[in-house]
């Protein structure tokens, strides 16, 4: 069987094998609102079980209950055929159940190594065994092909790197049951491949894996068994191969989702609204030049750490930079986000937890924070705010238990929707969106893509950074590919395909009118 598991076409496990971990008729409510309705599912050793569903369907909640981060309001968690109640995640971990959270779970001020071993420090007698921990960290990150210095401060590494650290942390726990909540949402294809290799290894070792993702192609690829949730209920369980991507989507959303992307709309003729010349940010971005035309949707592709985020943060004025920027032909100096706003440029940050949303405040305050001026002359117009919130909830199909729920208590995808709505509320001429659909379900993605196109049609210009190749390809008629902080090349029209972009991103050839 280990052989079978080792290659992707491993046959589905027969029901005879006993499940390691199972839920039976689990209910969960938050306050008056019930979120989960009798959920029952099993995880088998050496099997990858995928859990899919719309944003807010209850995937993360289910996973938290399995791993002891939340208690079930009713029903049982069964481990090795015996009902268990994990008082805290600590106990679950002790019994070999580990969860990789959807939202990062790293202490910003600690180093990578400190985070990975937090709560499980290796000791020699009383004292910490620094050498061993550093070595193991190197080894883990090495296995994940993420050559980070174990001592680097977590606040200073990029989002995908944080994701890889989370994965390393989980691997270091040597779990029997590994639960992964959208581990690839922030990863590019490269890292995803690396992760999948690890997953194969763990399968071979007989680990039970529960996995969620909104990237259905991944699910189709690695899942031995698929459970589909909708509105807190399990609506379908299928074996590998029973469902293709469209069927999955349909099962999740309940409607047909073919042709995700609206037809492309080249903007060749249009005049440039944003011109960037010799833009440099320390060692992260080197001498980048590009132009964005009116009504254009320009894509930025690249590997993790290629400097896309830094570039955009620089343009947005939250990172010190050198180089010249012109908007509508007039040179502008942008020193902070305020300047950027005035110049009609806004940025949707990649890290919604650290830079995007105030998790301890409600939707309304988060939604209007960026565009607050529009809502206040002397005092804030509360009614207008509420109206804006209604509009956002409707437009982006935001699902929350109540409109006063703290954003931190919303589902990951719904948080992302609030963030999107917040940025759009500023009605910018130029909008830069970094990993916009991170953790958003297919249904909403489709709506969002149409929204982006509508925006472009209305004469706004959009820059899309995405690690989801299909997204860049489907959305953009021109794509700039970055590599090591430089634009390695630019592809348009038919060249906008996975192969060309990846080759450029990895520096395999110099196709396209690169700037190097």
């Amino acid at each position, binding site marked *: 069987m280990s052989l079978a598991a080792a290659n992707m076409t491993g046959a589905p496990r027969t029901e005879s094998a006993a499940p390691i971990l199972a839920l039976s008729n689990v209910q969960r409510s938050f306050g008056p609102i019930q979120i989960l309705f009798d959920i029952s599912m099993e995880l088998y050793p050496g099997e990858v079980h995928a859990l899919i569903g719309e944003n807010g369907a209850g995937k993360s909640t289910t996973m938290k209950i399995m791993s002891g981060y939340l208690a079930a309001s009713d029903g049982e968690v069964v481990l090795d055929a015996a009902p268990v109640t994990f008082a805290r995640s600590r106990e679950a971990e002790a019994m070999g159940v580990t969860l990789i959270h959807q939202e990062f779970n790293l202490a910003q001020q600690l180093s990578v190594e400190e985070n990975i071993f937090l709560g499980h420090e290796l000791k020699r007698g009383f004292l910490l065994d620094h050498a061993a921990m550093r070595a193991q960290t190197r080894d883990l990150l090495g296995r994940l092909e993420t050559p980070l210095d174990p001592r680097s401060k977590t606040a200073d590494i990029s989002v995908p790197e944080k994701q890889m650290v989370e994965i390393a942390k989980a691997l270091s726990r040597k779990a029997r049951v590994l639960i992964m909540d959208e581990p690839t949402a922030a990863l590019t294809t490269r890292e995803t491949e690396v992760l999948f290799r690890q997953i194969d290894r763990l399968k071979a070792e007989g680990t039970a894996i529960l996995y969620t993702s909104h990237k259905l192609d991944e699910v189709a690829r690695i899942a031995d068994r698929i459970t589909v949730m909708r509105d807190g209920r399990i609506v379908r369980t299928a074996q590998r191969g029973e469902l293709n991507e469209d069927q999955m989507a349909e099962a999740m959303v309940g409607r047909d989702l073919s042709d995700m992307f609206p037809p492309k709309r080249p903007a060749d003729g249009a005049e440039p609204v944003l011109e960037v010349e010799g833009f440099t940010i320390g060692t992260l971005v080197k001498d980048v030049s590009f132009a964005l035309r009116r009504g254009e949707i320009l894509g930025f592709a690249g590997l993790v750490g290629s400097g896309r985020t830094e570039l955009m943060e620089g343009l947005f004025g939250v990172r010190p930079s050198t180089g010249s920027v012109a908007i509508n032909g007039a040179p502008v100096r942008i020193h902070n*986000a305020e300047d950027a706003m005035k110049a009609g440029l806004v940025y949707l940050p990649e890290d919604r937890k650290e*830079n995007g949303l105030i998790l301890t405040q*409600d939707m309304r*305050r988060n939604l209007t*924070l*960026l565009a607050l001026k529009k809502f*206040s002359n002397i*005092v804030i117009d509360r009614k207008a705010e509420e109206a804006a919130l209604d509009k956002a909830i409707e437009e982006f199909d935001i699902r929350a238990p109540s409109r006063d729920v703290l954003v931190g208590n919303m589902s990951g995808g719904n948080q992302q929707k609030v963030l999107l709505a917040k940025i759009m509320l500023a009605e910018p001429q130029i909008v830069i969106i970094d990993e916009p659909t991170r953790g958003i379900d297919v249904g909403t993605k489709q709506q969002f893509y149409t929204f982006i196109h509508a925006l472009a049609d209305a004469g706004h210009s959009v820059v899309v950074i995405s690690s989801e190749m299909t997204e860049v390809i489907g959305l953009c008629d021109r794509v700039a590919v970055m590599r090591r902080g430089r634009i390695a090349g630019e592809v348009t029209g038919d060249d906008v395909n996975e192969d060309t972009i990846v080759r450029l991103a990895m520096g395999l050839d110099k196709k396209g009118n690169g700037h190097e």
Partner: protein
Amino acid sequence: MSETTSNAPGKAGFKFDLQALGPILALIVLVVVGYLLNPDFLGSKNITNVLSRSSFIGIMAVGMTFVITAGGLDLSVGSMTAFIAGIMIMVMNGLIPSLGTNWGVILVGMGTGLMLGAAAGAVNGLLITRMGIEAFIVTLGMMVIFRSLVTWMADGGTISLNFSLGSIYEPVYYGGLFGIRWPIIVFAIVAILGEIAMRHTAYGRHCAAIGSNEQVARYSAVHVKNVRLMTYIVLGILVGLASVLYVPRLGSASNSTGLLWELETIAAVIIGGTLLSGGYGRVWGTVVGVLILGLIDNILNLTDLVSPYLNGAIQGVIIILAVVLQRARKSSR
């Protein structure tokens, strides 16, 4: 859950009540106790006394609420009061020869006080925002500096306002409108404006945003440094205002003026339910906190329950209890 659920139904609403009730409950208990101990307690005379003397701490505490909400702290307000009062008195005394003893002089003095407050606040704010030094250190340093400057100006003794000028100035503390003393009126106005600024203006929103997550505020085009700086300047001005009301009360300033007022002010803010860690503040809560602290002293004077030496102990216990009553909200930290 939290503060933001103001218009929430059901559970959220309940929580809101709970945290709101916390300090108010404590206040009510105190009032009842006070009345039982001594019926004169509710006499208009006593009420007036308590309110007007609380107004100094109160006015400063409103400003402090914004500072703390934006994730800052100011330990210098107490000695700043002493310093400003001292300068005001010296200025006014100095002007008498040229301008005589009249309202003109006093107005100049008041102006000096307010401007000095703004300046002092700006110094604090600039050191904190532009130099990026911990607010705790900056304001602790300033506290020590102001204290010793007062001692020096007073040559170790007391700086006293010219007597006849003092008697012109007195009504500013002891006088009032329709039997309500000026300090009380001013405190009320400041509190109301503060409440509005905190809940209904962009400024209040920005303070809360900065206090909860500076990065998000930055990415949301909030000019973090300026907003922060402004909280300190406003606080400074309010300290100036408090001094303007304080001088006519005692007509003098010395190095024991405003002793430990910083702690009392901060305590009032926290008792009111504002988070010391920043991100959430409520002005009305601060007002309640101020009244609680004011009443404790007053009640201890109403009766000789115990050796006066133990008054402090009682005070401490009540302060802690007042907050225990609302631990529900704290636990949300």
